[in-house]
């Protein structure tokens, strides 16, 4: 590391552009602050579901079927007499886990593909970009649908399918970020002092290419939650009696005429979560990409 410092020390220090702190920029953007607060509430309710939910999510009470919202059941009961609020709170756990794990899969595989393609270029880049083009030729939800159709309906398979469907967007974003970073002087300097490729990637390329990836993670989370709920709504994700927002909606469909609360509230949970994630993602994009901020 000493050599690293000596090298940079010989470069005349220019007055660095004023760095705005992430926090201040986010505060300037009220929309994303509200989004972040809502998100914290949703995460907290998912984590502490066992304590927060007034009833166990799967406790049936057939004498209490399809009751409208009341003091006893704030959001009413479903066709098995289960408390809708409790099921939404527990469903958040499932929906958020699916979102995080599938984005994790996409980030790990897509990110690695993008990193290798961008860093090494040449044939490897052509091959990886070819694969990405093929995956992009199918709309993401259809790709996920086809994969679940093949693997069979289950939560794990939905995670895998949505994860694979999100690989191309991560591969593309990481590749283009790495392409920019690769040309930087500090990367050339690191190569010049004899750093190995792995070290250059880990210490210089990845940290500096992280900005757009963070934005993509928050926006992909929103997309993944929507896609997973959509698959569950079609009966290809979470299976009864698991409480999951999309499958709750699917189960409530036959009662749309008489028990609208069973349809309304689980969907509202999805809208609020996705909205909050999008607001945070947008705020992060503005904060991490100053050019966009100037354009606005």
């Amino acid at each position, binding site marked *: 590391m000493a050599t690293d410092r000596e090298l940079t020390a010989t470069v005349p220090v220019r007055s660095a552009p004023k760095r705005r702190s992430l926090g201040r920029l986010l505060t300037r953007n009220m929309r994303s602050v509200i989004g972040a607060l809502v998100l914290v509430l949703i995460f907290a309710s998912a984590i502490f579901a066992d304590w927060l939910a007034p009833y166990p999510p799967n406790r049936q009470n057939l004498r209490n079927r399809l009751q409208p919202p009341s003091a006893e059941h704030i959001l009413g009961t479903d066709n098995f007499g289960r408390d809708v609020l409790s099921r939404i709170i527990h469903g958040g756990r499932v929906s958020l886990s699916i979102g995080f794990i599938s984005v994790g899969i996409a980030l790990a595989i897509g990110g690695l593909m993008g990193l290798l393609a961008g860093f090494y270029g040449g044939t490897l880049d052509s091959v990886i970009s*070819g*694969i990405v*083009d*093929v*995956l992009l*030729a*199918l*709309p*993401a*939800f*259809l*790709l996920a*649908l*086809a*994969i*679940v*159709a*093949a*693997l*069979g309906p289950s939560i794990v398979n939905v995670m895998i399918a949505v994860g694979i469907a999100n690989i191309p967007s991560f591969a593309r974003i990481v590749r283009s970020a790495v392409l920019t970073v690769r040309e930087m002087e500090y990367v050339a300097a690191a190569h010049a002092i004899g750093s190995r490729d792995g070290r250059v990637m880990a210490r210089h390329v990845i940290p500096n290419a992280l900005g757009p990836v963070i934005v993509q993670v928050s926006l992909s989370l*929103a997309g993944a939650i*929507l896609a997973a*709920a*959509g698959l569950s*709504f*079609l*009966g*290809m994700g979470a299976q009864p009696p698991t409480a999951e927002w*999309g499958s709750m*909606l699917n189960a409530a*469909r036959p009662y*749309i*005429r008489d028990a*609208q609360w069973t*349809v*309304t509230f689980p*969907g*509202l949970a*999805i*809208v*609020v979560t*996705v*909205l909050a994630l*999008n*607001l945070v993602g947008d705020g992060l994009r503005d904060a991490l990409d100053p050019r966009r901020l100037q*354009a*606005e």
Partner: protein
Amino acid sequence: MFKYILRRLLLVIPVLLGVSVVVFGIMFLTPGDPAVMMLGEAAPQAEVEALRARLGLDQPPHVQYVRWLGRMVQLDLGRSIRSSRPVTAEIGQRLLPTIELAVLATLLAVAVGVPLGVVSATRRNSIIDHVATVLAFVGLAMPVFWQGLMMIILFTVTLEWLPASGRFGGWQYYVMPVVTLGTSAIASITRMTRSTMLDTLTQDYVRTARSKGLRRQRVVYAHALRNALIPVITVVGLQFGGLLSGAVITETIFAWPGVGRLAVESINSRDMPVIQGVVMVFAVMYALVNLLTDVFYAYLDPRLRTRYS
């Protein structure tokens, strides 16, 4: 221009070949023997073996793929396990309603999204701009299936204005499916138009036009909008993929007799030949729309055209 189109057309072929490998691969890895599925669990082993041989299922994967691809190029997608009818007939019958739905939703999205984006940009921070921004955020966050159900509750159950399912019988049947499918596209197009309009409104040529004393209307529509629309067209093309995905859910909710609903029905009955066919048809449609988008883009942007001529 012709050279550009030809080049772009040739680029579609390897991508579609790749898609065919993915589609074949997915179905090949599917657990369960198609021959057993067609004959039923109780079928004698000899009969299953005979069918496997007849369908070529006893061949190695690459041989099966090449045969499958060869048939597909001749528009022979096999027979549906559920109905025993040719897959092309099954899909052909369902294609028009889906195209209808997707085209109408696209038109709606452009008709609403572009003007709304222009007004948002020209009257920045006005009430209209704030309302449009909020609507766009909500539109992007709303799942298609929930929006469809909410519209049924409002327009069918409560107001009794619109029918909740089916396609034949007049324009009323189109309103909810088209609006449901088009909403997220409206939201994307509004946001994209707004941000590109804001960009172009600060360009030199817009300032020049203004300083020439041209009327504001003319500057906004003839100078700024024309240039702002170019990136918007790309978004319209990309949205089409989302529309095809959305069609699967929209058609299921409103009992619309399209390809999307066919996909769900065949997944539920594990009718693999139909699923393969639907995915390939969607991929081809998506590729064609993106091709058209690119060609249109090149037509509008002379810089792209000259690069290839």
